Structure formats: structure tokens, C-alpha cells
């Protein structure tokens, strides 16, 4: 082997070693988890039921307010307090109670959906690839050298 050949072979070994050192860090691959279909259905059901019952609450709330506004008075009206007024006041009270119950149930369902969403959050899967240090091999050949390496995953 000539002197020139040896110099080239040494240079290749040095370059190869530095490349392997760069690849020495772990490779981390994180795969997000996925909820099962049943869990998704449960969450959608809870949230949907909450929204539905909350919507009913809004309906009764508005109905209650309409009825209350019809009999509310801040000054002398010149009108008698009739059975129709009594019915309106009763309706306002009844719808208010229904709205309160609906808001409570709807709110509980939505909160339950949020809690279930958090509780059923599937863990993400993390895969760490640890590249083993490459072992450079240099095989002098006639008129040069062959540089090789081996890695495992």
C-alpha cells in the first residue's frame, strides 16, 4: 500500500466516525392514542343529550320570561287581576322551574362529557429508537480501501 493510499484510507475512517457520532442520539416517535368507537359514542351521547336538555332549558326559560313580562307591571295599569293573569303567572313559575331543572341536568351532562373526555383520553404510544454505535470497518484493498459500517435498531 502506497503512502497516498494510506492517507486516503485514514481520512475516510475519520469522516465515517464523525457521521456515526451524529446518529448516536435516540430517535423518539410518538403515536397519539385513539379512542374506541364505544367511547366516542358515549362522549357524543353525553354531549348531545346535554345540549338537547340545555336547549329545552332555553325554550322554557324564554317561555317563562314571556309569560312573566305579560303580567309584570311597574305602575297602575287600570286593569283587574283576572284568572288569565293568574294562569300567566303560574305558567311563568312552572316554566322557570322546568328551565332550572333542564339547565341543571343539561349542565351535568355536559360536565360529565368533559370529564369523560379527559378520563378516556388514550395514552399516546412512544417508540424510542436507539441506534447502536456504528462500527466502521476499513478494509484496505488494492489501490484503495473499502469503508463499511453496521447499525442495529
Amino acid at each position, binding site marked *: 500500500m502506497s503512502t497516498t493510499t494510506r492517507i486516503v484510507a485514514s481520512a475516510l475512517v475519520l469522516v465515517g466516525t464523525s457521521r456515526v457520532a451524529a446518529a448516536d442520539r435516540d430517535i423518539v416517535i410518538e403515536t397519539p392514542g385513539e379512542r374506541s368507537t364505544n367511547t366516542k359514542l358515549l362522549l357524543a351521547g353525553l354531549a348531545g343529550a346535554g345540549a338537547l336538555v340545555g336547549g329545552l332549558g332555553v325554550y322554557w326559560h324564554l317561555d317563562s320570561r314571556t309569560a*312573566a313580562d305579560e303580567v309584570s*307591571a311597574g305602575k297602575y295599569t287600570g286593569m283587574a*287581576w283576572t284568572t288569565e293573569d293568574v294562569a300567566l303567572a303560574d305558567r311563568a*313559575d312552572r316554566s322557570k322551574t322546568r328551565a*332550572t331543572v333542564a339547565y341543571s341536568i343539561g349542565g351535568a351532562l355536559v360536565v360529565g362529557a368533559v370529564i369523560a373526555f379527559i378520563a378516556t383520553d388514550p395514552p399516546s404510544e412512544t417508540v424510542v429508537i436507539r441506534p447502536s454505535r456504528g462500527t466502521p470497518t476499513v478494509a484496505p484493498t488494492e489501490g484503495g480501501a473499502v469503508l463499511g459500517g453496521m447499525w442495529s435498531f
Partner: protein
Amino acid sequence: MRAAALVFVLAAACTPEIVSGSYLCGPERACPDDQACDGATNICVLPSQVQPFACPSQSETTEVEPNDDSVNAQLVANLECVSRSAEIVGCTRDLDGEDWFVFDVPVGCTAVAVEARLTFPLAFEVLSLEVHGSTGLTIATGGDCAISDAADGDEQRCLDVPLASGSRYALRVARSGVGTCGGACAHNKYTLTLQLKTP
């Protein structure tokens, strides 16, 4: 914080807000919750402001007691064939269950009728109106008026009856026994108007 305040305002708006003195009393002293019927004005007020029932003041009352039967009936005088409207303000309470008024139809009216209207607060006992002939028989009983609005706190009874010229008739205003609040509001005040007219 603002959202909480908004929710509170929305929830509060669901309860009727009725200021004391806003409504006249309904049938049998009906009033909104937490209010009661003032007997003096028949207006719904706070319970602490309620006064007992009171007849119109003496200066307002034109009914003269005793007039509790046809014999002692109060005379409504000077009616012509086509008369002015005579108005009587009266009151029935306690043992005074009925008031009688007589009037004469002038001689010589070609055709004549009496038009009478009895107006009273619907908060207290319902009153009835009758017209009696000279024999004492009931000729007609007051019914619903053609133009009437119970929402204004008053109830009305009307009658419109042809009469014979040159005769005496009597009007009887009496408590009916309806709407007495179980006896607690077995009284009422009234305004009776009558006039003779050509039918």
C-alpha cells in the same frame, strides 16, 4: 363574572315583577301573590297597606237609606219621556242586602223604555238588577251589557225594557250571593244609571 351576572338577570326576569298598586282586584278580591285587595279602593296592594271595605263617602253617596224594600223605595224624580241620565251611587253591606228605587214614567209618552246600567267592582259580591212593575212582578232582569270590559275592574248589568206611559216602576239592586269570598266580601258598592228613552 359578567356571564354570571347575565345569567342572574335572565333568571330573575322569569318571575313576574308586579309593583304594589298596579292592578285592580279581580273576582273575589283576587290579587297577585304577596299582594292583597284593599277594601277601600279595590286595588291590589301590599298586605300591610290593606284597608277594610268601605262604602263611598257620604258626599259621594246619593242613595238614601232606608230603601230596603219596594214600600220604602227611594224616588228617582223628574224623568221625562226622553230623560237625562240619572245617576245613583250606593252601597250594600252587612244587613243591607238590597236597595230599591222607584220612578214614574210620564203620561203621554208615545213609546218609552228604560235603559239602566248597574256598575260595581268585581272584587266583591256580585250584584243583580231587576225592574219591577206596579204590581210588584219582575219585568226584566239585568244581563250582560253590550259594551262592557271586565278587565277594567268593574262588572256591569244592563237592561233595556219598554214601559207603559203613566206607570210607576221600581228598580231593585240586590246582592246575589255569588262571589262572596266565603262571606268575607259579602258587600259591594255600585253606581246605577237610568234614563227613559224612545225605544
